């Protein structure tokens, strides 16, 4: 699949929601743990060799599942192949917890659901649609039908 790699690289240089050096193991059988600088920017998780400016790779965090593994370790897998896991080893339980929470909330789809939730709550309290002031109340992407079952 073609994609705009240069723009993705530029995105990896943007301010991150979270960044840390973690141990990372790829999904292939026999993968070894490697130290990686892991950086969360919008709905992408970038991972760098610790001394390089360009990322080794990126994971789009849509339809992903974040699972606790051994203590201090979590994994990311994707709905269509839940056994294919990217493992991340943290330096503490707290760090592990922090990352898991952040990654669960990192997807566009999660953010969209939050918007719909707040929109409805505000509407319930005030009787008004808060998106009208933005001129986006009719946008398909912010309708209730946009929520997955």
């Amino acid at each position: 699949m073609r994609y705009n790699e240069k723009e993705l690289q530029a995105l990896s240089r943007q301010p991150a929601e979270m960044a840390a050096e973690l141990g990372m193991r790829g999904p292939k059988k026999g993968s070894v743990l490697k130290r990686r600088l892991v950086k969360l920017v919008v709905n992408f998780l970038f991972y760098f060799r610790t001394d390089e400016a360009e990322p080794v790779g990126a994971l789009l965090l849509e339809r992903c599942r974040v699972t606790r593994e051994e203590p201090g370790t979590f994994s990311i897998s994707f709905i269509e192949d839940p056994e294919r896991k990217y493992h991340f080893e943290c330096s503490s339980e707290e760090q592990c917890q922090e990352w898991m929470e952040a990654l669960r909330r990192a997807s566009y789809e999660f953010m969209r659901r939050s918007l719909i939730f707040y929109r409805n709550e505000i509407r319930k309290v005030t009787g008004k649609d808060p998106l009208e002031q933005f001129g986006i109340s009719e946008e398909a992407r912010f309708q209730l039908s946009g929520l997955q079952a």
Partner: protein
Amino acid sequence: MAPGFPPGFSIAAMKLNERSLAFYATCDAPVDNAGFLYKKGGRHAAYHRRWFVLRGNMLFYFEDAASREPVGVIILEGCTVELVEAAEEFAFAVRFAGTRARTYVLAAESQAAMEGWVKALSRASFDYLRLVVRELEQQLAAVRSGAGGPALPLPLPLSPTPALPSTPALAPPLPRWPSALPPKENGCAVWSTEATFRPGSEPPPPPPRRRASAPHGPLDLAPFARLHECYGQEIRALRGQWLSSRVQP
């Protein structure tokens, strides 16, 4: 790593979880926009008709509507969406910042389709969505604490948003709507996916039901639909004038 390259220099392409991307592209959830668009292959290349699917901040394109896997994807962060001067009718561009950054020139099959796409794409970034969510979060907190009734002044974001730094204004020799028209999300003026709230900037006087960054005049009190129609007519007229006054290259 090939010999002769300085240490730390990697020539491998960046890895991406493409299979997951393909599943995201074709999953059952409702899409944010879909339709045929013509995509220009390169600067001097021909247009190819592709089936485009917008989901979140990802614009996928397929060989046709029945294809099971996308040909490619355009990641929509840090871009602006603009109308362009092109041989093709109903053309618009998705432009990224940076010296050697790519500009994707696309063309719709009708005026309405073009407007729909430009609107949808200019609101597609994660960054934009996050800004709106933060606004609503604060509004909800304000109403719950009993701060006011229905007509709330729009609170500005209290904490600096870790948004993309605003891309420097590109000064392209592209046709733009006359600067007398305020850039409006609902009109045909230039849209931008840049952050519209600039942390630390001066708060404008907060009349109710207004966007903080784009204060409007007395027309703002008119019903929204009528406003939209007003601006639409104005823009159609201006566009007609612009098209007839254009010198052909």
